[in-house]
């Protein structure tokens, strides 16, 4: 009996060692192209695998003469779209998003936009109407994309800025909305309807931002074009 036990034990350990050996062979299981020289050259070109992946100080160059961030290109952080639903989470604090008194104000302003004359480019009108329907479906990010397409095609079309500003305002991004409306204003000298509407947007944005003095000024301006 004893010897059987011992032999059994022997066999088992043998088997285990085989399993172990098999596992040792494991690291060999990998993708076919694993040329390390290639990898080293690649990392020269592509400074991806550096430590400062998330930081701003990604500067691979030793001869850099700039004391600060090498790429001060994109200050705004991206909108992060949550996993399931594609809705825009504004990057600023969410508390700013819902401010009851201005909601109505925004609605009123946005409704007034319907009176604006159409763009003379068919493609722009098409994109604006796409944006409207996407917005209606709650696809805010997609709506923004449509409006920015329109803005690239027609950077001097005031209606595009009007929509962009109104959309940002309804998303609670009042500071952005105000600036977009200010830019829109520079495109519409002597166009009263637009001037009125942009000043109304500015007023609503400033109200949203708690800038009551600025809001009052914008209302006075708007009234000039009523």
């Amino acid at each position, binding site marked *: 009996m004893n010897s059987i036990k011992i032999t059994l034990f022997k*066999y088992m350990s*043998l*088997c285990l060692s*085989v399993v172990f*050996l*098999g596992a040792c*062979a494991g690291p*060999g*299981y990998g*993708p*076919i*192209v*694993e*040329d390390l020289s*290639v*990898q080293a050259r*690649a990392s020269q070109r592509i*400074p*991806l*695998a550096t430590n400062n*992946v*998330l*930081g701003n100080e*990604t*500067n691979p*160059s030793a*001869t850099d*003469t*700039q004391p600060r961030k*090498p*790429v*001060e*290109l*994109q200050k705004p952080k*991206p909108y992060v779209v949550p*996993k399931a639903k594609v809705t825009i989470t504004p990057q600023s604090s969410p508390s700013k998003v819902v401010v009851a008194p201005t909601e109505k104000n925004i609605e009123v302003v946005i409704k007034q936009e319907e009176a604006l004359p159409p763009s003379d*480019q*068919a*493609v722009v*009108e*098409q*994109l604006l109407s*796409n944006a409207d329907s*996407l917005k209606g479906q709650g696809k805010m*990010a*997609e709506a*923004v*994309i*449509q409006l*920015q397409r329109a803005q690239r*095609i027609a*950077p001097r079309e005031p209606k595009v800025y009007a929509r*962009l500003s109104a959309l940002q305002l309804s998303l609670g991004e009042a500071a*952005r909305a105000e*600036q*977009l409306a*200010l*830019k829109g204003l*520079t495109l519409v*000298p002597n166009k009263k309807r637009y001037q009125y509407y942009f000043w109304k947007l500015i007023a609503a944005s400033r109200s949203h931002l708690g800038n009551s003095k600025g809001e009052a000024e914008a209302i006075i301006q708007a009234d000039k074009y009523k």
Partner: protein
Amino acid sequence: MSKNRATSKSKPNAPEKWFSWVWLFKLATVLLVLGVVTLIYLDAQIRHRFEGHRWSLPAKVYARPLELYKGQQLAVGQLDYELTQLGYRFVQSATDTGQVQKTNQGMIIHSRGFRFTDGAEQGHLVEVILQKNKVTQLRQISGAAIASLRLEPQLVGGIYPSHNEDRELIQLNDLPNGFIETLLMVEDRDYYSHYGVSPWGIARAMWANIKAAAVVQGGSTLTQQLVKNFYLTDQQTLWRKLIEAPMALLLNVHYSKEEVLEVYLNEVFLGQAGKRAIHGFGLASRFYFGQPLNEIKLHQVALLVGLVKGPSYYNPHRHPQRATKRRNLVLSVLAQQGVISDVQKTQYQALPLDLSKAKQVSRYPAYMDVVRRQLQQHYPASALSNQGLRIFTSLDPWVQHQAHIAMVEQIDALNQRHGKIPTLEGAIVVSHRGSGELLALVGDHDGGYAGHNWALDTSRQVGSLLKPVIHLAALESGQYNLATLINDESIALPQPDGSVWQPQNYDRRSHGKVPMYKALTKSYNQANVRLGLQVGLEKVLQQLSEMGIEQSIPAYPSVLLGAVEISPMQVNQIYQTIAGNGFYSPLSIVRQVTKANGQLLSIFPLIVRQAASNDAVYLLQHEMRLVANEGTARGVYRFLPKQQKVAAKTGTTNDQRDSWFAGFSGQHVATVWLGREDLKPTPLTGASGALNVWGQLMQHLSYTPYEDIKPETVGYYYVNRATGVVIPNGCPDGIDLPMVNATAPPINTNCGY
């Protein structure tokens, strides 16, 4: 190997008398257990890899899609170029997707469609009618209305995992006609009937090879090939040999033929492009033909299938004859087996290889560099290199192409004119005037080397490029108009260290009192230093910071003449704000990021921030147009038609170490820098160096006539060029200048003298 060890280990424990049935039984048990354990282990391996995260997929970086719509102005040759880069084929009659047919009036394009971030766009058959490169009409052949046609965006690069494997995943229904037949006929005829290994196949392959006196067919099944590539290393070890067949059998047991085939199609290695390994037929089709797999024709299918046997030996770029021979052999096999007729075989064999005409190497190293840097701020490296993210950038392939050419050709011309200028480097930054999107980036003198990025990583003194900022600060103060007289007498300023700074004009002369606009068009140093000091150094620096320059700049008067180090990218940011009618927009690169499945992860919204008043910027823009019309930048009209309005400024630093040119047209803002790597003087001024690059670039970009929108507060006044006095029309030596009505001086009836 392990089995050997097992038997040898049992030997010392096996004296002669142990030789018996018991011994045999024990040995058999050991082997059985070993076999079972190995199988279980292999089984786990197979299932783990097959069902898990199969491949690390590099992030794909896309250029902007070309959008065609009525009224759009294209550049000469642009549409042909972009379609070629996308792998469209120019044919007599566009019947399939990916084809273009030239017509008398324009082109008929059969577009492919693409899953964009804002929704899928179907392929369309559309006629684009062009007049002088302007799209005058867009209509679907079906008659249905179409407002715009978005071509698919060009894939311009990837962010590769460390092993540099790249692939474009495909499914069985992406395969073109005849693909499966060809593949199976050449690589594994019994695929649908064998159990993962095929002794019969080996025998037949051997026979076929003997008959043909060449290796026509391989003996291992597709399943075995997949096991080899997918699970095993490339080393020829005994262990590998031993487990290949069992693994193939297991794979066959667990998964359907279709599943295994699909993985095979995506795994197989089909070529090498520098560091990048081309895997799978999807990417191989793009790589060799520039076309999606579903578009390729049988002769192309035959080439790809033929490549399986030896992608480098049959490399069609390097060995076209070998590749053609191999392809034709594959076509012969198809004919022998009755897949195609002999006539078809002859027709296909007569066709060229049809390799892509688009350039294959990464053409945009500097741009890709900036894409990576931006993404690294938002995503971890692992997410970028293995999750197949789709990155949509604003890169404009046409602008990038032209910028590259302008740099290379003009540097060549400068070297010829001045004798070789050693270590001459350069950078170009181009952005979209309306949005601030970065369209193109050239990071060195030939635009091809992915080394030091001179557009981003080098800050050099900018010379006169800051003079417009002085003028903007002055106009913003409300105390100046374009005709205000500025003293250009020499000026000496004691420095904190006791020395005296005495800037001089380029021509080393003083010009007395000059109207402000002339101080800019002639780039007088003395007048501009005086103007800057009158306005206030702090105000000028404040204005600069409003325009997007964040670095802290010491408030020395020499800063007024550009004694401050700024990168070409940042210079372009300053000019973007001027071009953007006083609204700062950060130069942006990425538009959207999605997951591999198309789910939107991030969008980068348009940001504008007012940095200067509308009327002040309007006046400055006018001044800068005069710089191009009659000032230091007038050389651009050697490249551009007279009626094309551009606003610009030259910049030259001490001893001509740096040659700068920055400015904008109706659509584009561009900055060019040239200088020596070793900081030594060059024979170049801004006007004799960087201007040429800028001029050639703008000459080849699309151009829409663009009138700036005059603010209500501004009017035009006729002014005496010498004295800056407003004069009646009809007086000699006058010029029309815009002024803010409230600050305009009264008319002088003596014609200003």
